[in-house]
């Protein structure tokens, strides 16, 4: 799964521009499922199992990642950008990026630290005080390479480090996509729907349409969620810990999760000796927010990977958590088809 994750993470696909990710995913699952691409660009894959279950079950992950979009080309050839999804300007400052279809290399920076005014010192500039520099001298020159509305993606290397950790951009939620591809390639025992959705980061929009189309009884959202387990965080503010297994939430900012399914997840984990944890803060949110209120309601569970430095060019997860999330998802699915 690591190799698959690496390929997925290195593809560029900010919200609304997921084409490259979609094409790759389709290439991986087309021999194992019936695929439809809906008007928004969601991939809806139906996987025929050996048996037909009592319940219609959906597994979903999002293809898009956070990034930036070009909003203006300055007269000196630098680009103004705005964030797409929740991006703290602190994590883009002094980073390399790729701009547009031509993947033009640029750097994000601002006034040199030596030349800051007293008021500016010690503060990270917001997007209004950052530019992307692609090495052009004029607007005319830049316009030959870049257009307004072009996507701006983090240029981040995929790195394996420490005791089984990996780092890259876009782990949120290519990790979910990787697990789903693996589940599809394994061919589930029962008929299952899988949706790879667009535009999660700008308001759970792809999942809203896709879950309407699938019309499931039960849904499982595979995600990456905030782990703040760094030494400066108090125990209750760590949310969840990398290496302690998949995260099953009882509540976040968009969803109060189905209590029976929440309990089922922990029972399943316990019986199979899979580490599993819950979030210690009501924070974040994911496509479950759209799916669980789709049509007349869908019983929804989120199984997430604890991920440090979410929405930055350097997201960090532990591979053992990914393996455990995959195993746990498979086992819970088996207990859901006919419950």
């Amino acid at each position, binding site marked *: 799964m690591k190799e698959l994750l690496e390929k997925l993470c290195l593809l560029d696909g900010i919200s609304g521009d997921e084409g490259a990710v979609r094409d790759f995913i389709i290439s991986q699952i087309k021999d194992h499922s019936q695929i439809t691409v809906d008007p928004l660009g969601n991939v809806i894959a139906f996987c025929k199992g050996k048996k037909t279950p009592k319940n219609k079950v959906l597994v979903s992950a999002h293809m898009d990642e956070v990034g930036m979009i070009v909003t203006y080309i300055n007269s000196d050839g630098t680009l103004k950008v705005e964030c797409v999804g929740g991006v703290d300007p*602190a994590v883009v400052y002094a980073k390399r990026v790729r701009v547009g279809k031509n993947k033009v290399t640029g750097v994000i920076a601002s006034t040199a*630290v030596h030349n800051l005014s007293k008021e500016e010192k010690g503060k990270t500039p917001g997007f209004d005080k950052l530019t992307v520099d692609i090495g052009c001298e004029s607007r005319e020159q830049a316009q030959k390479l870049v257009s307004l509305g072009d996507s701006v993606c983090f240029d981040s290397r995929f790195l394996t480090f420490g005791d089984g950790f990996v780092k890259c951009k876009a782990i949120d939620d290519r990790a979910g996509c990787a697990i789903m591809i693996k589940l599809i390639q394994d061919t589930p025992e029962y008929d299952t729907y899988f949706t790879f959705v667009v535009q999660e980061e700008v308001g759970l929009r792809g999942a809203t349409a896709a879950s309407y189309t699938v019309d499931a009884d039960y849904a499982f959202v595979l995600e990456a969620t*905030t782990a703040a387990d760094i030494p400066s965080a108090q125990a209750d503010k760590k949310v969840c810990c990398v290496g302690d297994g998949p995260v099953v939430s009882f509540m976040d900012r968009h969803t109060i999760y189905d209590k029976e399914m929440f309990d089922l997840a922990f029972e399943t984990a316990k019986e199979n000796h899979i580490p599993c944890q819950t979030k210690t*803060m009501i924070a974040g949110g994911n496509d479950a927010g759209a799916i669980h209120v789709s049509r007349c309601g869908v019983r929804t569970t989120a199984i997430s990977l604890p991920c440090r430095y979410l929405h930055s060019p350097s997201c960090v997860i532990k591979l053992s958590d990914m393996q455990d999330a995959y195993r746990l998802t498979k086992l819970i699915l088996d207990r859901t088809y006919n419950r």
Partner: protein
Amino acid sequence: MGFDLKQALSELCAAPGVSGAEKTAQQTAQQLLSQFAKTETDSFGNVYGYVGEQTHGRQKLMLEAHIDEIGYIVTYITDEGFLKISGCGGIDERALAAQQVTVYGKETIKGVITSIPPHLSEKNNSYSINDVFVDIGLSKQQAEKLVSPGDRVLVENELVSLGGSLVTSKALDDRSGVAAVLLALDMLKDKQTVYDICVLFAAQEETGERGAKTGAFRLAPDLAIAVDVSFAKTHFESEEDCAKMGQGAMIGIAPVLSSEFSQGLIQTAERCGLPYQLEIMSGTTGTDADKISITAGGVRTVIVSVPLKYMHTPVEVIDLGDVEKTAQLIAEFAQGR
């Protein structure tokens, strides 16, 4: 084979050399210098070069650039196995969050500088060096086997091209200066110079111009040209305070510099039709020139700078054309033009 500027600069920038731990950068620079000069090094981290025969009775001109770069130093390993770091030189703390870093411990290991995701913070974050850790994905016990306080940490961006002749990399401050000196020596090959030429690639500029102090004492030059980088205008900066990219070397004028020497360089540029820009400073220069000029009984010193954007970040930007123009100015001056 001619001197390949971009290739040399790429090698120089890639070599780790945080202040006080310049060994790899020192070796890379010495290797490149050895094709033009007899070289030696010292325990301080400096590289010295003597070009051709050093003749008695001629004035000795020292070409100088610093070999160290901005970086971080490990100060503590936490119970969780994360590293606390401090700055080596005047770091830009805005550039800390979410960087991939290399820790030069017993082995070279990789890690990430911590940040807090937007889901858990009210507004945009600003980080100081005291707020962050290096996450190396190891327990304290594992970490202690590989990392010790004092190890250096770097954000390692290799050199890549942007538009035109612009390049971005870490450490362009001041490997651009080192490359300009090397290119000047290449231009001077088989040429008559009016000075005996020696070279100093100095350690520890970023922490207080210390290598230049000991190095200039050792070489005892009559004249010195310090080659560094200085501010090129970026989008939010004023034209009045900065040079322009691509418009040639910045010749420094400052109370602590030899005004006669500054004027001499201006005349060389005028006579040879080389583009140049003036950089006026009202006291010291914040470069090795400050220390060189008061070495031993005093050295007539100037500073020549390559315009650079986003100084002290891992995404510094320069124009290779400016390095060439800087080298040309030095080479013409050395020939007495």
